[in-house]
């Protein structure tokens, strides 16, 4: 929980013992001169993972002394703790310390409380607080024991040229590798718990943390989570990926192992979905090609959760075609304003948030609205890693918000971090993150890196097969070109007559009335091509709809931005709040528990925040919007609104004609 040890001193003491721990009888013991705690220490000793006892392999003494500069003992629930700006460092709020390898110092004010039967503050008894403190210090001791294994040392020598811990000039990334000596600086732990460096957490979402100290440094986070691993029966369900990590490094499974009733439900775009691990077939690296906007010129990196449709009895490659059931995990800058400020994007002023999105919506966004191809690269993950990824996704959904930097902490780096929170391979992570010339902080470069290092594979198939099997989704531009060519082949002169000899001119320069008249004219001239003419007109009109809406949106946004009396008005803020997405509300809310909520807690959150009502209200606002009301209130945009209205009428008309044409056959 607290900073209470001399790291360097501990390193010197404990480093001497590396490789010397006994395989059989351990020399570990935990004793104190205070008889009051002998039974508790015996219990801790009995419960402590055998792996830890074997590795620590020395007698430890618990000594009661003054650890707090004011000689006070604050419980974590004490309101005073919340007011401390720099606890522990300032010598306040220090229940325990680890100053050398053989002694754990405990705040002496524990003693009278431990002698008072049943003493507790809020729901925490003095006995449990004492246990947590001892476990915390034991975690620090164990943390210092982790050094590179033989393989890592060989790799390091070959690539960095020295075994010393000093800065290495040969390659900058070797400095990072140098630091990887403790569990709390282990690549996988740091990615699991969102650490950029051991001193800097990427997570800015701190109100629902298990303990504020998990943000102090990765060493304190490691110790604080270990307390929960040993003492919180719900830790396996609240932090399932972290629970798995501790299980791996201690070879212990407190409270009967993994979570038995993980709540995998989340809210996405105001719909509840279940990230059910039992139907997950594969996870793909999902890569949108470069776009035209500043923020999308490097592509966009995402993950695709390939779920099998409920009706499938067999889980195989056919599931890759079940796109309706797939889910996209996408880190994006959460821009809570009406326009994107590139300056803010470059300087980390936007939150980096993980969105859980329906596959078809994301695919359409990139291929139809932005004309970008999307590749889907299957990741080389085993069953356990896939399960872990889902657990990490849930932890991230509920507990993480970073800072989005367009050029550094972006979709690629966040996705890479997700990947290496489940792939325990420091070498490949360091090679990709620090040493790969493919520039992995760009999504496109990251895709190439993942293939190069055999983390993802892209099938060697002809393009048509890649499309047919769900590995490639082509830009909607192709459909538009086919539609336009069909109209042109029907009567090129008619298109020229309205100044629409090319597809881009048809989309941007013609009016809705012209297009409706053109469609009628073509039908009369070539009735044998009715279905094609109608389908082509509809496809082009659909694309025009996106362009018109986008243009109108920008005009209205500008109007609002330029009018502070509107922007800052209560009505606007109320309406905006109403329109805020449910997932944003969840992330911003203060909850009763940390981590992934149980099913009961989840329902409680939905009820408390009125989330279901919020989703209904959003739908209602959309339904209440009409072109008449827009025209009345925004007369300066009348021409754009009327054009959009005509476009909508065209779509309806074309569709109805298609219906007739198909039925007539």
């Amino acid at each position: 929980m607290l900073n209470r040890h001399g790291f360097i001193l501990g390193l010197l003491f404990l480093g001497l013992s590396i490789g010397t721990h006994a395989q059989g009888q351990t020399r570990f013991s935990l004793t104190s001169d205070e008889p009051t705690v002998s039974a508790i220490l015996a219990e801790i000793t009995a419960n402590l993972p055998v792996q830890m006892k074997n590795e620590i392999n020395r007698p430890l003494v618990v000594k009661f002394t003054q650890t707090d500069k004011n000689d006070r003992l604050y419980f974590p629930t004490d309101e005073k703790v919340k007011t401390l700006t720099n606890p522990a460092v300032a010598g306040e709020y220090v229940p325990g310390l680890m100053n050398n390898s053989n002694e754990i110092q405990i705040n002496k004010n524990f003693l009278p409380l431990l002698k008072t039967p049943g003493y507790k503050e809020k729901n925490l008894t003095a006995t449990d607080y004492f246990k947590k403190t001892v476990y915390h210090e034991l975690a620090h001791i164990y943390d210092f024991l982790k050094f590179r294994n033989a393989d890592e040392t060989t790799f390091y020598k070959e690539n960095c040229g020295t075994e010393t811990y000093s800065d290495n000039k040969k390659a900058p990334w070797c400095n990072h590798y140098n630091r990887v000596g403790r569990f709390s600086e282990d690549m996988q732990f740091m990615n699991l718990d969102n650490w950029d460096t051991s001193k800097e957490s990427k997570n800015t979402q701190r109100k629902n943390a298990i303990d504020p100290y998990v943000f102090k440094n990765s060493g304190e986070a490691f110790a604080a989570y270990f307390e929960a691993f040993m003492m919180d029966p719900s830790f396996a369900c609240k932090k399932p990926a972290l629970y798995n990590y501790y299980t791996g490094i201690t070879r212990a499974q407190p409270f009967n192992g993994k979570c038995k009733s993980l709540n995998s439900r989340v809210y996405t775009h105001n719909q509840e979905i279940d990230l059910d691990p039992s139907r997950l077939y594969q996870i793909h690296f999902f890569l949108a090609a470069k776009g035209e906007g500043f923020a999308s010129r490097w592509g966009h990196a995402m993950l695709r959760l390939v779920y099998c449709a409920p009706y499938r009895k067999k889980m195989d490659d056919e599931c890759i075609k079940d796109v309706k059931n797939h889910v996209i995990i996408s880190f994006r800058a959460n821009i809570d304003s009406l326009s994107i400020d590139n300056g803010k994007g470059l300087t980390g002023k936007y939150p980096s948030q993980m969105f859980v999105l329906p596959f078809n919506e994301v695919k359409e966004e990139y291929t139809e609205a932005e004309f970008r191809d999307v590749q889907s690269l299957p990741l080389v993950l085993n069953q356990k890693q896939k399960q872990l990824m889902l657990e990490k996704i849930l932890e991230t959904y509920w507990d993480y918000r970073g800072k989005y930097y367009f050029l550094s902490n972006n979709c690629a780096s966040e996705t890479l971090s997700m990947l290496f929170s489940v792939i325990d391979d420091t070498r490949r992570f360091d090679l990709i993150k620090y040493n790969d010339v493919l520039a992995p902080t760009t999504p496109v470069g990251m895709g190439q890196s993942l293939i190069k290092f055999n983390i993802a594979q892209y099938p060697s198939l002809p393009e048509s097969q890649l499309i047919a099997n769900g590995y490639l989704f082509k830009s909607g531009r192709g459909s538009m070109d086919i539609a336009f060519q069909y109209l042109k082949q029907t009567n090129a002169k008619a298109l020229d007559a309205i100044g629409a000899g090319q597809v881009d001119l048809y989309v941007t320069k013609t009016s809705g009335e012209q297009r409706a008249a053109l469609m009628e004219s073509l039908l009369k001239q070539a009735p044998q091509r009715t279905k094609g003419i109608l389908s082509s007109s509809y496809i082009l009109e659909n694309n025009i709809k996106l362009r018109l809406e986008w243009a109108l949106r920008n005009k209205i946004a500008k109007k609002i931005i330029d009018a502070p009396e509107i922007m800052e008005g209560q009505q606007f803020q109320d309406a905006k709040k109403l329109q805020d997405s449910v997932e944003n509300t969840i992330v911003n809310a203060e909850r009763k528990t940390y981590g992934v909520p149980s099913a009961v807690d989840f329902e409680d959150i939905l009820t408390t925040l009125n989330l279901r009502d919020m989703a209904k209200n959003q739908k209602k606002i959309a339904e209440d919007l009409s072109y008449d009301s827009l025209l009345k209130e925004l007369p300066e945009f009348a021409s754009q609104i009327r054009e959009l209205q005509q476009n909508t009428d065209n779509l309806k008309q074309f569709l109805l004609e298609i219906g007739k044409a198909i039925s007539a056959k």
Partner: protein
Amino acid sequence: MKKMIMAAAIVLAGVQAHAIGLTQTAIAITVLPTATLSASISGVQKAVLYRDGVDFVLRSEVDPNAAPSLALQQELNEYASKKPTNETALQLTNRLLAAEIANDQAYLASKK
């Protein structure tokens, strides 16, 4: 500015789409007056049927070997799993499109 139109402005300005890239789709979904259309009679997702179904109809006009998109194919599979049919993908698409459009037409007529 009235409250309702204020909300409309926010809808147009990027509802629930604070995130880069979400804006266009969010607006497309919100502004399209699908709310005036009735619920699907076939259980097939109407948006997929209309967009990908019409695209498939067109592609089939120019290429006899055209295949439906994966999204459309999945909708057709799910429909066929409930109501088995020997129709080809194109025949089934045509039939569902016709039924769906007729249903919407009737609904719109009833609203007038």
